[in-house]
């Protein structure tokens, strides 16, 4: 497969047993995302976009189908291998930030490096760098509850960036933020894209999706549309 493909899925399906009935959340998804792309995945709730995001993020394994992440086949990896892939190749940004409440911002950012067995000195250095990248160089020792919502999301983005992953995967990154703060966060994500990061944003908000250069719409477990957009004006 071409070396610039960050994501390639072929016939990806996922079914869940809900009591006696089987729910087909994904019914065969073929998706290719190349290095440096900025993709929004849209769809109404129940469309299967969350399931797709979990599979792309290696938090779950597909019922059938193939998935290559950054060239590695990952569809059938055991738990500890998936954990390593999540650690090295993927940076998650969550709607609810998911920071550890008792740890300082800097320590939250260090967390992936701890599991990546990066030595302490280098860890600290890289975490500080990531904090500067999200313009929070002066908030490193603050705890999450001493930060605003927008600042917390910046910390979470720094945590996603710190391992220099192949893919930044943001799940409704502005869902818990007001409009002004949402804009700030999207400006930051746009900037990260312009610096060369590959970004996938899962959202149901059209104006968030408009930041992306390509919008993939999921409906009933299948890709309903996949369209390139002209480069959005930075708001």
């Amino acid at each position, binding site marked *: 497969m071409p070396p610039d493909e960050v994501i390639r899925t072929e016939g990806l399906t996922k079914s869940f047993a809900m009591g006696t009935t089987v729910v087909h959340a994904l019914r065969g998804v073929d998706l290719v995302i190349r290095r440096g792309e900025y993709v929004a995945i849209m769809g109404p709730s129940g469309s299967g976009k969350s399931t797709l995001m979990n599979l792309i993020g290696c*938090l779950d394994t597909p019922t059938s189908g193939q998935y290559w992440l950054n060239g590695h086949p990952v569809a059938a990896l055991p738990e500890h291998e998936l954990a390593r892939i999540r650690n090295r190749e993927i940076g998650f940004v*969550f709607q609810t930030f*998911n*920071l550890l409440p008792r740890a300082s911002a800097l320590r939250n950012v260090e967390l992936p490096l701890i*599991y*990546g067995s990066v030595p302490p000195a280098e860890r600290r250095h890289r975490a500080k760098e990531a904090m500067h990248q999200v313009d929070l160089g002066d908030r490193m020792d603050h705890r999450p509850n001493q930060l605003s919502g927008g600042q917390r999301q910046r910390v979470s983005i720094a945590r996603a960036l710190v391992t220099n992953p192949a893919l930044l995967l943001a799940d409704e990154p502005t869902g818990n933020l007001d409009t002004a703060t949402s804009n700030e966060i999207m400006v930051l994500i746009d900037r990260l894209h312009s610096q060369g990061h590959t970004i996938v944003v899962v959202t149901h908000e059209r104006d968030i999706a408009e930041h992306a250069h390509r919008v993939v719409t999921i409906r009933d477990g299948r890709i309903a549309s996949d369209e390139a957009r002209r480069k959005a004006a930075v708001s």
Partner: protein
Amino acid sequence: MNLGESTRLALESIWANRLRSFLTLLGVIIGIASIIATAAVINGLNLYVSEKLSNLGKGVFTVQRFALITNRQDFLDAVRRNKKLLPADARAIAERCPTAEAVAWETHAQVDLKVGVHEIRDTDIGGITPGILEIEPYDVEQGRVLMQHEEDRAAPVAFLGYDVKDRLFPNVDPIGKELRVRGHALQVVGVAQKKGSFLGFSQDNYVKIPFSLHRKLFGTRRSINISVKAADPARMSDTMDEVRAVMRARHHRRPAEPDSFGILTAEGINNLWRNLTQTIFSVALFVVGISLVVGGIVIMNIMLVSVVERTREIGVRKAVGARQADITQQFLIEAVLLSCLGGAIGIAIAFVASALLNAYTPLPAAFPAWAPATAFVICTLIGVFFGIHPARRAARLDPIEALRSE
């Protein structure tokens, strides 16, 4: 993730819930503290007994009317069967046991003593043959011990235990002073060094007088204890066999009948004592073991609560790359540290308790050197045993559901 990081995380978590952690640990703290305090007391008693018995000297044993008796029926049998031991028995041993190097004897009576306004109660008046000083030497503080010529003519002389001197002759030189026992005036010739007390009983409340004088004062019907020193300490059992044969012959025992007297060695007394204290310790261990199991269950319970509370945190850790092994390690180390923290507090309490026991009670507690290490091993085992289930439960959480949890 390395151990240092896991340890740091665990300490942070324990510290964040410090009151809860402390309450969780009460079971382990109390368990460890009481087991070590018990061990300290028993250790202290053992050391004391061993030290006292070692004074008896090598190759020395005593023949007494009764052996060490540990049940009531044996006692009743022995009272009926065993004759009093007499000086004639001792002389027979001295004559007919070639490997006995020295034979001496002592008999006892209790009296209250008074000198002027000073008095002391329940003093042990020991009638000794001076030969006993070769077998069990006394440490002399002042003056001298008793002499053979004093025994030969039943001289009215006395050698005092330290307490007797202290209570009857405070602030005066007792040598040459007069002490009345049963209306007879005895002259003090020496004072022994202080031995101290054991379990609250003074070891210094005695007066030694010549055996011949003792018979004049207290009569001839008292049983004696015979001390025998083997010529070769390494072959003491040969000497004991000779003595047993002589005594059985004198008491006309048939081959199948049990001894009608007791032979006691320092080793025998020490063994009996150790059996006794080991039994006490085993019972204590069992009782305390229950409290440690309860303590472990409490730790497991609180760890399960902690896993539920931190479900979201576990989800985040998994999302950023924690493997099941990392999560297991983190929670297991937390359980072990929690348990060892309890152990450390327990050890500290036991240390203070044994110091207090020593200072304020007659119990000679000696904090055993092996106790801290053993306690930590036990606490680690408790932590692992009761922590593995919560840790596995945390590790197996599905990251997607964990992230979704409130």
